[in-house]
């Protein structure tokens, strides 16, 4: 076997809890590992699979509804040849009052290697990671973080910067990203702010003041309630999902007012640069936070985010397990 070409950096972490914990070098290591997995998924008639995690057990443990993220993790595991198990919480012992630690002890008694967890409590992944031997991947903990979403977004932005500049080594230093919507409840926003600012991008968050955490600027981003101001120099316009299920709290006066002030549509985009990419973490409330013709338009990279998500999650699982 030829030894590694360069003295590449070595991955040392057991778990992936949040992008706040990671260094720029660690984030770049994940992003640099992902392209070969993009190529695996694109094999035409060939086998879309590599044997890196053959015989490993990966458990998807989701306490909140999720289609995209859960299927993306499951597919990532399968494309690495791992065995996967999905814990259906609706039907599991959590409903009978078993604690997270007890349930995970039982999963580990069946020799799990990776546990992917989504839970409504911020910090749940961290608590499990401290006490258990399995590699824990946080797939969203409350409003805290959703690190693989932040990674796949950074990967998608970097990929486009590299294509635009025709430079395969280009970074996202100096790229301007505007994140629009419900910042308060958004773990996607938090992971993106941590990840993108560490990679040298400048991030501005924008939304109604009732959906803006007071000390968000401490994370290293700019803050505004004015959409035009937020997107005027943006290379990326990132619309967040309005979490209608949380609208019971009446955090903005009406859907109609939100649409008038903050919807990303062809009208509001007149104030953004023409090259700006449109991103959204899904699922979209069509014509609420994002107009249909923009979501499906030529500047939208929303489906690329989904494709890249599988590759980035493959990279994360590989680095955690095989390091």
């Amino acid at each position, binding site marked *: *076997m*030829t030894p590694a070409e360069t003295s*590449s950096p070595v991955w040392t972490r057991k778990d992936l809890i949040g992008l706040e914990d990671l260094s720029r070098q660690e984030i770049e290591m994940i992003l640099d590992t992902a392209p070969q997995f993009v*190529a695996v998924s694109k094999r035409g*008639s*060939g086998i879309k699979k590599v044997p*890196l995690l053959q015989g490993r057990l990966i458990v998807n443990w989701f306490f909140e509804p999720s289609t995209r993220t859960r299927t993306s993790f499951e597919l990532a595991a399968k494309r690495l040849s791992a065995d996967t198990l999905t814990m259906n919480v609706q039907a599991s012992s959590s409903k009978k009052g078993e604690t997270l630690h007890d349930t995970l002890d039982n999963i580990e008694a069946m020799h799990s290697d990776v546990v992917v967890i989504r839970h409504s409590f911020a910090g749940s992944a961290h608590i499990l990671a401290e006490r258990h031997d399995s590699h824990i991947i946080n797939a969203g903990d409350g409003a805290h973080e959703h690190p693989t979403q932040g990674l796949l977004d950074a990967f998608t932005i970097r990929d486009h910067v590299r294509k635009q500049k025709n430079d395969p080594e280009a970074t996202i230093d100096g790229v301007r990203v505007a994140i629009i919507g419900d910042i308060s409840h958004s773990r996607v926003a938090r992971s993106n702010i941590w990840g993108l600012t560490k990679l040298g991008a400048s991030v501005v968050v924008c939304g109604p003041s009732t959906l803006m955490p007071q000390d968000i600027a401490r994370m290293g981003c700019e803050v505004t309630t004015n959409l035009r101001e937020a997107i005027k120099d943006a290379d990326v316009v990132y619309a967040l999902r309005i979490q209608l299920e949380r609208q019971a709290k009446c955090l903005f006066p009406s859907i109609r007012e939100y649409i008038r002030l903050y919807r990303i549509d062809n009208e509001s985009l007149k104030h953004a640069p023409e090259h700006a990419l449109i991103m959204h973490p899904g699922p979209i409330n069509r014509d609420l936070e994002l107009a249909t013709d923009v979501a499906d338009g030529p500047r939208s990279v929303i489906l690329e985010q989904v494709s890249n998500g599988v590759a980035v999650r493959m990279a994360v699982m590989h680095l955690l397990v095989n390091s």
Partner: protein
Amino acid sequence: MLDAEAMDTALVRLAQEIVANNEDLHAVALMGILKRGRPLADRLAAHIDNMTGQRVRVGSLATTLYRDDLRSGKNVGSVGTHVTHFDFDVEGLTVVLVDDVLSTGRTIRAALDEIIDYGRPKKIQLACLVDRGLRELPIQADYLGWSISTKYEDHVQVKLKEIDGEDVVLLERSAEADS
């Protein structure tokens, strides 16, 4: 061990042997194993073009996702960043794997597995610039530039103009071997 001229002579001979061995060059694909196998595959293709006027297909193979040493923890966190790329279907082709140094044979084993995941080639052959011995698997080159017997502690390095700025093969015998 091998200077630029000797390397070129060896590559011309390898190209001749590939042509002699494969009647239908339209059905031949040279697959360079990254990183240094790819420039070698490009050079072989250029030589074959000069000799026959026929352009054979060329692709790149990373092989790293098929390594057998990742689970052992020896090469922690280093599948590297090479990406396999070729824009043809390997089904029914004669694929010639091209690498700079042949040693344990484990890279070639990984390459065989990777290729077969893409399709079923008619044949797979192997071309290497240097065989340094130390085989751990039953794998041999069909086209070989240079053969040399080495010990594990010795260091064999192939440098290529495209990557390293010069064409040379270096052999550094370990100190213990000398004494």
